[in-house]
């Protein structure tokens, strides 16, 4: 087990290195100089050269990368061009908001997905299966940013039950677990939960159907095992994979929150990313993408290790 964890960890290092290189180069594949967005178009050649020196863009790419990694490892992601504040600080605040949203959405999606998937797999080919499968295929097919808009139209514009945007009256930094704030969380979380709901439901359905068709279940049934007992077997066999899917979904939601956060003006990492892109705030862009991607790499590692601990049959290399 320990050997597997170490192996998996060693495998992660080159991937993490590659991810950092991609994040670093992103800024450099942008057309033109990374500074063109910062400087006024009529900036003198001397000013341009000075700025280039200040930002370190005059050095060889590989030196720039090395310095960037060194600074990043010390927790310094540079300073946002638009606000002048440290990127790390902005990110910490946004990451908290996105995590709250993504974790809640994953939980809702996981519970509903397991329910639908289990019902569909247990009563395979019945009308219940067809209904549950239809709901789950809607979950994976709906453009969630549109679903968000539709929910806003119904619950905010027409019924006026829930707020359409934002994270509460006090702005992004002032969160509390009371109704004034939590009601802002409901619509985005429900919208976001649709994706993991669909994927978990499809996975669980396949798992349950597969386990029920295995001989040991038939054997146990023949020996007089009750449905409750069968249920226990199914849960024990399906749980590791279902949990792994849930973990990965959390990662996808964290990284892909930009669309939903744009619809609901939710002050998270996706919102920050949108700002960084449209203001061409390169340090902010680089930092946000790096942190989100590294989060995903770490989560992948964690999911693999936990899944192997729960179910030693699945040892991947």
């Amino acid at each position, binding site marked *: 087990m320990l050997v597997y964890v170490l192996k998996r960890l060693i495998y992660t290092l*080159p*991937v*993490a290195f*590659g*991810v950092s*290189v*991609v*994040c670093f180069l*992103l*800024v450099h*594949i*942008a*057309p033109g100089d990374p500074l063109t967005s910062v400087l006024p178009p009529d900036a003198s050649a001397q000013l341009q050269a000075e700025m280039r020196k200040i930002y370190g863009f005059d050095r060889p790419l590989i030196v720039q990368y090395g310095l960037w990694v060194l600074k990043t490892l010390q927790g310094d992601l540079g300073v946002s061009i638009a606000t002048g504040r440290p990127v790390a600080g902005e990110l910490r605040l946004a990451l908290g908001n996105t995590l709250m949203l993504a974790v809640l959405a994953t939980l809702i999606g996981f519970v509903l997905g397991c329910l639908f998937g289990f019902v569909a797999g247990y009563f395979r080919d019945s009308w219940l299966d067809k209904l549950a499968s239809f709901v789950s*295929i*809607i979950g*994976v*097919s*709906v*453009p*969630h*940013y*549109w*679903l968000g*808009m*539709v929910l*806003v*139209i119904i619950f905010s*514009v*027409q019924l006026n039950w829930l707020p359409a945007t934002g994270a509460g009256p006090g702005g992004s930094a002032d969160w509390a677990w009371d109704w004034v704030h939590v009601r802002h969380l409901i619509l985005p979380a429900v919208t976001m939960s649709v994706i993991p709901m669909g994927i978990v439901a*499809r996975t669980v359905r*396949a798992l349950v159907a597969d386990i029920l068709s295995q001989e040991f279940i038939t054997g146990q049934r023949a020996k007089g095992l009750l449905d409750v007992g069968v249920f226990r077997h199914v849960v024990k066999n399906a749980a590791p994979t279902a949990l792994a899917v849930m973990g990965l979904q959390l*990662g*996808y939601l*964290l*990284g*892909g929150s*930009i*669309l939903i956060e*744009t*619809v609901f003006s939710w002050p998270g990492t996706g919102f920050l*990313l*949108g700002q*960084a*892109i*449209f203001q061409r705030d390169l340090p902010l*862009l680089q930092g946000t*993408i790096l942190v*989100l*991607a590294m989060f*995903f*790499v770490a989560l*992948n590692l964690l999911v693999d290790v936990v899944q192997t601990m729960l179910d030693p049959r699945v040892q991947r290399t």
Partner: protein
Amino acid sequence: MSSASFETIATAGTLPGYWSGVLRRLGRDPVAMFALLVILAMVLMAVFAPLIAPADPYRGQMLRRLRPIGTPGFPLGTDELGRDMLTRLIYGARLSLLMGVTPVFIAFFVGSAIGITAGYLGGKVNTVLMRTVDVFFAFPSVLLAIALSGALGAGIFNGLLSLTIVFIPPIARIAESVTTAVRKIEYVEAARASGASALTIVRVHVLGNVIGPIFVYATGLISVSLILASGLSFLGLGVKPPEPEWGLMLNTLRNAIYVQPWVAALPGAMIFITSISFNLLSDGLRSAMDLKS
């Protein structure tokens, strides 16, 4: 060489039988057939947009902005610049389908080539290719698409490029694992032992066995690609105004949800219908080929 040509004849004899069986089973699946019909209708709508659409998709009148669904002359209302919604939804199929389907189409070829090469050659080539793929696979797909097109800037080409890069890694991974499995089957070993060249083996023995599963997997990605492509335009990346594209229309109509909510929601319904149709067709294809997801 003689054994290779014999095998060509043998596989040429069996392949169409297998595929016609798949098509026959697919034809008996009413849900998949309905989905196919919807997709065909969308494609026809895109191709013949100038003939079907009742109005000019670019010309609007500020005096008749944001009319409701059912307005005489404007069956689906008008948008924020007074352009006919029905016309723009019809024209929207062009860019939305193009932006959604093309990346998966290109990624299918590039990803398969990478995966089959890595899987068949194995060893160092496999390590180098698949580790590179793993790096891109380590990004959540939405994040990678937005990061790339955010860095490259808005525009149709940049959007297509970013989405293609997003879909190459998953397809390459599937191709690699399927090819690695096929390579170990005895008749491939036998072909290699009897002196067939790598290219011949891949063309004759490997391709026929691996292309089906990769293809089904790729069809399943089309709905994701459609949602993502329109999502890019929804964010202001991807397609630029005044082009009619469903995601972009959803973006420009966002502020209209307080005036004409259901007109504003129409473009998203189009994306939804198209994406669920591709998913249902892909599911039907998968069960017709009897593959496990």
